[in-house]
């Protein structure tokens, strides 16, 4: 059961050199679902899972989201919830440290972990979280209504692949709106990532403890929350699939003669396999500079060759495959990448960086693939995203190489807000630092056991090339964290299990227990630390729906803050503006201004044209402003009080979460 079930999931058996080669046509395999079912002897390991599910399910009834403070979701989650997480983590640690861990049981634990960590907000909150989720629904709505895209509206329409897919799915599935898919999107996307993650790590090691602990760490540390209904969530899954396929089936095998030949092999005489860059460089130097003293040349050889051999020690072999399999797999990689290019601005370039690093270092032998990927990206930019580039080329080019600016936008600007929120921000930095420190320990421990893991190291480092390229709206470090997370999780798990052992020692068991439990609580704090501003009530969504009823097309809709569940319909039919993004507002000294002066600024912003103007104030905006420190304390309530008492404004709608004010303008037809 044990070895064969590992082979069913990770396909490891075919890697063994003594096995007959796999042929395309051979006796078909039987269905082996029994491999995934727990044997009676291991049934006890499922008991903690059931207890955890019961604790979690019953704890959610006690949650009152309205009492949340600036610590986020953890401030309203009861102790029973965390007890459930602890029992789940302890049960997983128990299962994975057993002499023969069972894949089926571990899979059940991971499935429940994903639901508990990523599905809890959907079960306790009224509507899907994140303002950007609602915006994505609006873009999808535009695609469905028009059957076209307009790149002049905004950048989303220059990379509309995901929204086209979502529009197609919404229509053929008979859904009213894409928002019906948004609530469980985090659970869906994380579950989606499980299989390529297992495939990738299953290539890097055959130690099943290391494989499953990597998956657990990956989901326990995924705090950045990019798994909502978004292009980047889907493209991250595609990224994992691409690197998994390339490493499993297209990794360059290590020629035996590299280790056996007394002299450097004659790379130039044999086209396949081509020499790695380091060897070719050494050969070129030796031939080009023959006049260099032999001692120096010999010294160079003595350095470069052992270095390269050292880097490949313990490297996993690629799966044996037929030419037909390689053709289909490479075609699959190209199709997946081709669908990614029109769907997201950033991910294709990270994929290009990672694949190029693997090819240049001779970890993957698909030498033409990076060129093809670059051509696809360039073609899309040149022909389909030209409207976006025309307006942003100077800004994009100006940011290249600005590491300080990028780090400032990503780190310094985020360390702000209320005291509780600052604790969450520092917690995130600490949480990240702990993972990366564990990963460094794992690298060292693997090296000391002869495992270089160069390919995984490249996957952990290649995405960092994006940092000096673009600040990406202050999010590039978050995205880099996500792209490096699979490799970092692998090395963090390797800190405990650097090599396979039949039975882990007491230290390893204790470390596993800590790794499987402590991060879960930390994840709930760091991932959902902004929840007070990110979550919405159904009253707020009803308020926005009322706004669309009240405002004629072409009106100016002004939101008092970023955290607004709007734009989910009529995406192009209104002029949307956020008060805190307005240049006039940003130039105002908010601390020194009286409410009346601030109201005058709002009037100027709203009254600048000949159209009707509406101001939308919601509870989430105020919570978000207080949380992030966007506005001085009590600015928004005082401004609203001043607006409510002004004869220039009329309250058109109000409920528990929303107020809608319209600016009286005598020269506008149809106004109040």
């Amino acid at each position: 059961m044990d070895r064969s079930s590992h082979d069913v999931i990770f396909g490891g058996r075919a890697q063994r050199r003594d096995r007959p080669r796999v042929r395309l046509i051979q006796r078909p395999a039987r269905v082996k679902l029994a491999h995934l079912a727990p044997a009676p002897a291991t049934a006890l390991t499922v008991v903690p899972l059931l207890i955890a599910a019961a604790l979690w399910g019953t704890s959610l009834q006690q949650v009152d989201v309205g009492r949340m403070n600036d610590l986020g979701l953890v401030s309203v989650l009861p102790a029973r919830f965390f007890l459930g997480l602890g029992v789940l983590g302890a049960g997983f640690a128990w299962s994975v440290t057993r002499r023969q861990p069972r894949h089926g049981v571990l899979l059940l634990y991971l499935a429940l972990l994903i639901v508990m960590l990523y599905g809890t907000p959907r079960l306790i909150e009224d509507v899907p979280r994140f303002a950007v989720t609602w915006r994505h629904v609006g873009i999808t709505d535009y695609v469905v209504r028009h059957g076209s895209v307009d790149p002049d509206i905004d950048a989303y329409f220059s990379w509309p692949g995901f929204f086209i897919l979502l529009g197609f799915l919404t229509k053929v599935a008979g859904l009213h709106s894409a928002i019906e898919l948004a609530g469980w999107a985090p659970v869906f996307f994380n579950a989606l990532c499980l299989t390529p993650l297992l495939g990738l790590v299953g290539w890097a090691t055959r130690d099943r403890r290391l494989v499953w602990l990597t998956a657990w760490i990956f989901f326990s540390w995924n705090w950045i929350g990019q798994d909502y209904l978004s292009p980047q969530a889907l493209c991250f899954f595609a990224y994992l699939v691409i690197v998994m396929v390339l490493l499993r089936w297209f990794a360059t095998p290590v020629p035996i003669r590299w280790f056996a030949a007394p002299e450097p092999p004659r790379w130039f005489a044999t086209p396949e396999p081509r020499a790695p860059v380091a060897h070719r460089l050494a050969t070129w130097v030796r031939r080009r500079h023959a006049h260099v003293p032999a001692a120096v040349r010999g010294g160079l050889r003595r350095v470069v060759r052992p270095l390269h051999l050292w880097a490949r020690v313990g490297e996993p072999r690629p799966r044996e495959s037929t030419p037909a399999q390689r053709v289909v797999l490479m075609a699959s990689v190209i199709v997946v990448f081709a669908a990614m290019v029109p769907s997201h601005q950033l991910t294709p370039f990270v994929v290009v960086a990672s694949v190029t690093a693997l090819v240049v270092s001779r970890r993957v032998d698909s030498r033409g693939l990076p060129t093809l990927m670059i051509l696809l990206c360039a073609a899309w930019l040149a022909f389909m995203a030209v409207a976006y580039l025309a307006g942003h080329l100077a800004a994009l080019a100006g940011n290249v190489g600005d590491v300080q600016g990028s780090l400032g936008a990503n780190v310094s600007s985020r360390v702000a807000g209320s005291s509780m929120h600052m604790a969450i921000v520092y917690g995130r930095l600490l949480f990240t630092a702990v993972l990366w420190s564990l990963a460094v320990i794992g690298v060292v421990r693997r090296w000391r056991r002869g495992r270089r893991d160069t390919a995984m190291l490249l996957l952990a480092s290649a995405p960092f090339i994006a940092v000096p390229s673009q600040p990406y709206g202050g999010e590039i470090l978050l995205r880099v964290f996500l792209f490096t997370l699979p490799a970092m999780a692998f090395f963090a798990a390797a800190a405990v299990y650097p090599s396979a052992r039949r039975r882990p020692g007491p230290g390893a068991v204790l470390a596993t227990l800590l790794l499987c439990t402590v991060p879960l609580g930390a994840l709930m704090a760091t991932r959902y630390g902004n929840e007070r501003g990110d979550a919405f009530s159904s009253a707020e969504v009803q308020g926005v729906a009322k706004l669309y009823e009240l405002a004629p097309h072409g009106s100016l809709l002004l939101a008092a803050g970023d955290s607004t569940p709007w734009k989910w319909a009529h995406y192009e039919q209104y002029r949307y503006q956020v008060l805190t993004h307005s240049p006039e507002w940003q130039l105002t000294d908010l601390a020194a201004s009286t409410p009346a002066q601030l109201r005058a600024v709002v009037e100027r912003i709203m009254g600048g044209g000949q159209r009707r103007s509406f101001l939308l104030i919601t509870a989430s905006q105020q919570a978000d402003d207080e949380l992030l420190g966007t506005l001085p304390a009590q600015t928004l309530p005082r401004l609203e009080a001043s607006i409510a008492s002004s004869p220039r404004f009329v309250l058109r709608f109000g409920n528990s979460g929303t107020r809608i004010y319209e600016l009286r303008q005598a020269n506008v037809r149809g106004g109040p």
Partner: protein
Amino acid sequence: VTRRTVIDVAVVALALAAGFVGVLDLGVPLRSVLVISFVLFGPGTAVVQLIDLRDLAAAVAIAVAVSIALATLIASATLYAGIWSPRLTLIVLVLATLALIGARRLARPALLASHGGAA
């Protein structure tokens, strides 16, 4: 009954059911489940069935990724060609799935095997 036959039958049944309720716009209760399941798994599984990966985790990942990619590319092609039609996209996906499954089952094993020597 082999594993591949079971998967073939399941994919064909899913494709036909999803195509039927999706194209005819039937308001059946499980319509969204059927159609979304097909779009997520159907075409990619037909592609993966062409090659026997013997690797469950990787096969599932590739099947889902290829399915989503094909749906994205075909839907985008209809949109940029000015013939945006979710139904047409679904029909193309169903036909492609059935064609891939049919081609594999009708292909002569000996012919494929002659090109299928292990690397």
